[in-house]
């Protein structure tokens, strides 16, 4: 009987152990991810919960980088010459893909060199060079010894073009092309005349001058075309009847290299001159009466104004109101979304501004006020909950917008160039390791991070919540004692306050970095008077708690400002100007400990 009981108890214990172990296994299975070669939602090579795995494909309980099917390598198409970093799973051999486990830089077939074909140069692979030669019908040469794009592009040169004359059955005709292309024409006997236009009368071709024009994909200007469809020189109405202008390529044989310009204005909307300039704000476009103010005197093409000049565009109008002109092609600038509109930022995001902070004795300025949180005052300058910046760009006559990443993980920076135009861009907000910097030099190192050094309060605290102070002689934070009360509390805080997810637990952790404990010792002396109430920093400028045990608002505001500098913490208004639900008293808790003596 005894043995039977013992046996039953053993079975019971064993069962309980197995249940516990089984639960742990289930829990861990549900909470961990697996590397799925293909997921149910169509993505390849993702670490996902088992419930999202497409089990028709391989999967395993390891990170994708450790698998054979999802490790990152190079997918090369040896015909097209493309090489891209990718996992093996997405490199489809039926589409011509060949996968290598090495990176593109270390894969021999992906080695780049300089490909010259026609007038062009391209820094690419040998296979891509061969492919381009085939596609564009030009002989190509590949030089592997040129190993950077700049040097390669410098080798591009415009081949001399001219009139390629041949008999086409219906008469003597002509094509304006390069010598090489002329020589490669099939089944015809050709003669090439360098720098001649097909309308040169001495060639006696059936190509005649016209008053028609065209745009070329390889140039910004408007060009005359002859009756055979060949491009001639740049459109200039004054030269339309000039025999020499129709005989030779511009820049040769007495023909001016460029048409007369309009004092560097790109011949914008000129009806008689097609010498457009992209960098001066014009390019060849088909005339459109709803866009272009006047029709060209000849042909159907014109140097269209590609600056953003139309104030009917609200973004152009906004720019005009701020800067008293309209934006030019290529110009970019920053704006901040507000409730009803967008506010432009002439200097981009200036970050939070420290309006005032306690004087720092370490800097040589002595003051009785060393550590006084009530002196901290900042201006968030738009870095508020929901505040999002926008990058505007004027390109080809249109203003395009790019919204910065949410939570101010991107900020907009703007500069003015020497010629008075604005250039802006979105950059990453490098705030994440500000809190960990324990000296001002590292804090303010703009090559590594975007932070500010704020005095008056500290992030580092002891277990009682007493802030540390910064000791310059040790270049670190140290506990505060009676003998080092002259040292300053300080903190390295984000220059551009990051945004937080209001419902995420981590938000409370981050905002709690600004927590501060203020110990108040008071006694009731006979009557009801309370004495003491100084903060642990030894400030004599007022307690954190008034004598009637109410919160000292000056002190509290300083702490609130410090917290606000951490990110979207404490009180504040959001991007549409609506105040948060917290009031000052909601942010502080009075804890009574001990009893009156």
């Amino acid at each position: 009987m005894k043995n039977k009981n013992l046996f039953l108890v053993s079975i019971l214990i064993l069962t309980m152990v197995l249940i516990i172990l089984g639960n742990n296994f289930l829990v861990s299975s549900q909470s961990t991810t697996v590397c799925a070669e293909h997921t149910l939602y169509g993505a390849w090579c993702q670490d996902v919960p088992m419930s999202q795995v497409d089990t028709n494909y391989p999967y395993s309980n390891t990170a994708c980088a450790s698998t054979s099917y999802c490790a990152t390598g190079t997918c090369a198409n040896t015909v097209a010459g493309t090489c891209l970093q990718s996992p093996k799973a997405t490199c489809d051999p039926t589409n011509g893909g060949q996968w290598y486990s090495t990176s593109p830089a270390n894969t021999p077939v992906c080695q780049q060199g300089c490909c010259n074909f026609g007038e062009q140069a391209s820094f690419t692979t040998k296979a891509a060079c061969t492919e381009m030669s085939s596609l564009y019908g030009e002989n190509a040469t590949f030089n592997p010894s040129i190993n950077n794009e700049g040097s390669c592009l410098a080798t591009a040169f415009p081949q001399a073009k001219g009139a390629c004359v041949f008999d086409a059955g219906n008469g003597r005709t002509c094509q304006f092309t390069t010598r090489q292309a002329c020589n490669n024409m099939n089944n015809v006997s050709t003669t090439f005349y360098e720098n001649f236009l097909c309308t040169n009368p001495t060639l006696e071709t059936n190509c005649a001058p016209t008053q028609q024009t065209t745009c070329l994909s390889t140039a910004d200007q408007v060009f005359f075309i002859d009756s055979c469809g060949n491009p001639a020189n740049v459109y200039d109405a004054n030269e339309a009847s000039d025999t020499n202008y129709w005989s030779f390529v511009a820049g040769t044989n007495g023909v001016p290299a460029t048409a007369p310009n309009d004092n560097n204005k790109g011949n914008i909307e000129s009806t008689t001159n097609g010498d457009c300039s992209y960098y001066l704000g014009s390019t060849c476009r088909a005339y459109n009466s709803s866009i272009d103010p006047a029709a060209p005197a000849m042909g159907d093409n014109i140097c269209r104004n590609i600056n953003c000049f139309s104030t009917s565009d609200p973004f152009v109008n906004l720019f005009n109101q701020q800067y008293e002109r309209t934006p030019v092609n290529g110009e970019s600038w920053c704006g901040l979304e507000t409730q009803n509109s967008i506010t432009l930022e002439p200097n981009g995001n200036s970050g939070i501004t420290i309006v005032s902070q306690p004087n720092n004795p370490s800097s040589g300025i002595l003051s009785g006020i060393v550590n006084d949180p009530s002196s901290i005052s900042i201006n968030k300058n738009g870095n508020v909950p929901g505040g999002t910046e926008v990058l505007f760009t004027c390109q080809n006559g249109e203003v395009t917008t790019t919204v910065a990443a949410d939570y101010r993980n991107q900020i907009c920076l703007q500069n003015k160039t020497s010629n008075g135009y604005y250039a802006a861009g979105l950059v990453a907000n490098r705030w994440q390791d500000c809190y960990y910097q324990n000296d001002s030099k590292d804090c303010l190192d703009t090559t590594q991070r975007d932070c500010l050094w704020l005095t008056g309060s500290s992030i580092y605290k002891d277990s009682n919540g007493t802030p540390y102070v910064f000791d310059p002689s040790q270049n670190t934070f140290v506990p505060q004692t009676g003998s080092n009360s002259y040292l300053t509390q300080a903190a390295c805080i984000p220059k551009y306050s990051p945004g937080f997810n209001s419902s995420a637990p981590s938000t409370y952790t981050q905002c709690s970095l600004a927590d501060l404990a203020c110990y108040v010792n008071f006694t009731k002396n006979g009557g009801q008077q309370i004495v003491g109430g100084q903060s642990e920093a030894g400030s004599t400028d007022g307690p954190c708690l008034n004598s009637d045990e109410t919160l000292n608002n000056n002190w509290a505001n300083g702490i609130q400002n410090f917290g606000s500098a951490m990110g979207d913490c404490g009180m504040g208004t959001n991007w549409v100007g609506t105040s948060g639900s917290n009031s000052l008293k909601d942010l502080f808790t009075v804890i009574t400990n001990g009893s009156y003596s």
Partner: protein
Amino acid sequence: MNKKGDYFLDNAKSTGSKKGQVTVFIILGIIIVAVSVLVYFLYPEIKSTLGIVTDPQSYIQTCMQKEIQQTVTNLSLQGGLINPDNYFSYYNEKLGHLYDVEYLCYTNKYYLPCIMQQPLLQQNIESQIKNNIQQTANTCFTNLQSSYKSRGYSVSFIPGNTTVSLLPEKVTVTFNNQLTLTKGNSQRYENFNVSINSNIYELSSIATSILNWEVTYGDAPVQVYMTYYHNLIIEKKEQSDGTKVYIITDLNTGDIFQFATRGFVMPPGY
């Protein structure tokens, strides 16, 4: 009876009648000329509509052109896929339409670069076009054969494979079918080529270059591309979940290619 008045009345009637006749003939002449002009310009379509086949190559070109164009347009707006499976639903304000835009580079994680989903983008687009047009192509060839049979031809048809090539400024589809028509003597037709004007080769090349930036650096400098390619507008639309939708527009042709990526996403806070 006033003979003089009658004379004038009769003269007027006669003159008016003659003028009216002339007017009618003039109007008739104008109509004939107009119809002739219309027939001259619309003849291929009219013949096609009426089921009259001019020659097999032209017939296939006309029959397939619209289908190929529509396929290219549709997949260009969906990141290169006819039926996107891993996509972001994006509302294109300029086009006034919601599109399922395929992720060409994607990760579900924070901080990490995206994982290339379509390293062979152009080749995949070619496959997508080929698969999508096959049914219509079969119908076109069937109708072509029927048309000749109805005219007394003996028709021999050997189907072959279909190849799609994205080329600079055009898309060419080659049907390597063999068609032999016999009525008295035989004529053989093979390698039916259909070409449409499209910049999808150039736009997808730019897209591939952008993807290369995305997978390596987590972002692409779109302004640099626009400075180099004056005919392009490239927009980058960042979404709230870290997705980026790139929209590449060719100002000369109006062609658009748009696609999505998600990589190097920073979460809120830490």
